[in-house]
């Protein structure tokens, strides 16, 4: 199998997909190219894994990561949302952490990490703000030290992307639609909507905009009506009122 003399390790979603298309169409050299452009990332992932399992051998972990990468390339579906890079990372990381020498020790840490994620999710909604370590520990039934360790030791964000239904990820299409619709509002309306979205109180928004609270509430109502209209496809003109 031929290795091209590529110098830089960089990947883009578009370039990845082109290589994947070639590979899945039967061009074996495309897989090697794909692996090459991700070699910098793989090295970084291995380095992170070694921080958590310093007893493991870097070469072994890299081979595991390569296997995970291969699985991702083989299984990647073009109709699927999400980029290949994220999938490759999940698979590579999964392989490294499923390797016998790493798995034994880190299973508990993974479980704690998932507990912490779930606890933060519940607290975010309950408190309407970012929870403290102490609150997280209480909610997750862990000590503060365990929470800190779980968050530091497993910084990898794969759990969220596995889409196991336990955590709620934004729907990119809906977010895009909402962003587009807000962009069509007047600047005041957009300001009110985004601030309300962020959880600001009408009083706070009124103060920031130098308007009365009633005026801000009216702006917000009008903005919501406008948003509904836009999303229904009825309104697409910039509202300057």
């Amino acid at each position: 199998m031929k290795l091209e003399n590529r110098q830089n390790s960089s990947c883009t979603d578009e370039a990845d997909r082109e290589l994947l298309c070639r590979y899945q169409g039967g061009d074996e050299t495309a897989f090697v190219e794909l692996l090459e452009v991700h070699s910098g990332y793989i090295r970084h992932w291995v380095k992170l894994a070694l921080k958590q399992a310093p007893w493991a051998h870097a070469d072994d972990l890299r081979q595991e990561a390569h296997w995970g990468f291969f699985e991702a390339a083989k299984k990647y579906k073009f109709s699927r949302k999400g980029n290949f890079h994220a999938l490759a990372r999940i698979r590579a990381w999964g392989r490294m952490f499923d390797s016998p020498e790493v798995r034994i020790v880190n299973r508990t840490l993974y479980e704690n990490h998932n507990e912490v994620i779930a606890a933060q999710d519940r607290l975010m909604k309950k408190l309407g703000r970012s929870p403290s370590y102490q609150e997280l520990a209480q909610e997750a039934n862990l000590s503060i030290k365990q929470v800190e360790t779980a968050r530091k030791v497993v910084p990898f964000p794969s759990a969220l992307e596995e889409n196991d239904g336990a955590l709620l990820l934004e729907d990119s299409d809906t977010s895009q639609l909402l962003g587009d619709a807000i962009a069509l509002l007047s600047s005041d309306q957009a300001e009110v909507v985004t601030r309300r979205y962020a959880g600001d109180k009408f009083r706070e928004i009124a103060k920031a905009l130098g308007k009365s609270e009633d005026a801000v509430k009216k702006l917000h109502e009008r903005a919501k009506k406008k948003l509904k209209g836009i999303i229904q496809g009825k309104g697409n003109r910039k509202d300057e009122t």
Partner: protein
Amino acid sequence: MKPEDIDQLLESGRYKHLSEETLVSYRDNQLDRIRVALADAHLRLCLICQERLAFLKEEAEAVANYVITEEDRAAIQQTVRDLEAETNAPGLVSTEIQRLTAYIRDMLVAWSVVFSQPAMRGFKDGDEVFRFENEKGLLTVWVMLETDASLTFHFSSPELAWEGAQLRFRLGRFNKEVTLQREGDSRVVATIEIPRRERAKKMNDISIEVLSNPGAIGSDL
């Protein structure tokens, strides 16, 4: 999205975790002002997404201007050799389509042995006239002569990665394209029915092509 969902979306949207796509765009300053505000609204609340963003920043910094080393190349070559050895396929990195094609080819060889005589003789309606199962059990094909004298080909495999693969089937003048589809959690299947009047006289005049369709083949992850 339904219009009535606006209130709910504005109320609860900020509790939804940001996708990696959004986080990467945020990191790379590719979001417009509105989307930055929406992302910020969530990031202010969510330690997890703050960490994910930090992770992605760190990752980008780690690979910035990274130059592939000879060690990388050696590791890649080693991986390719390992993969080839593991899958026992010449020049591995054989794709799903290539694997399926190889199994179909084996099946056609078996078919040509069974039907070395062009005509199909000695079978009764309702009989199974052909069965093929490869060594690893990854592809089973059986053919039934139905009571109405039509012929039914059944393809079945536990290899879910083949979901979506298209087969172009021909027996005599009969042509059909079918897609392997998921049946339950453990199999992909396809069925081809050849009505009596379209049955081939020469049973060994058969071809099955696995269409190269990389966009369709692959399993859900």
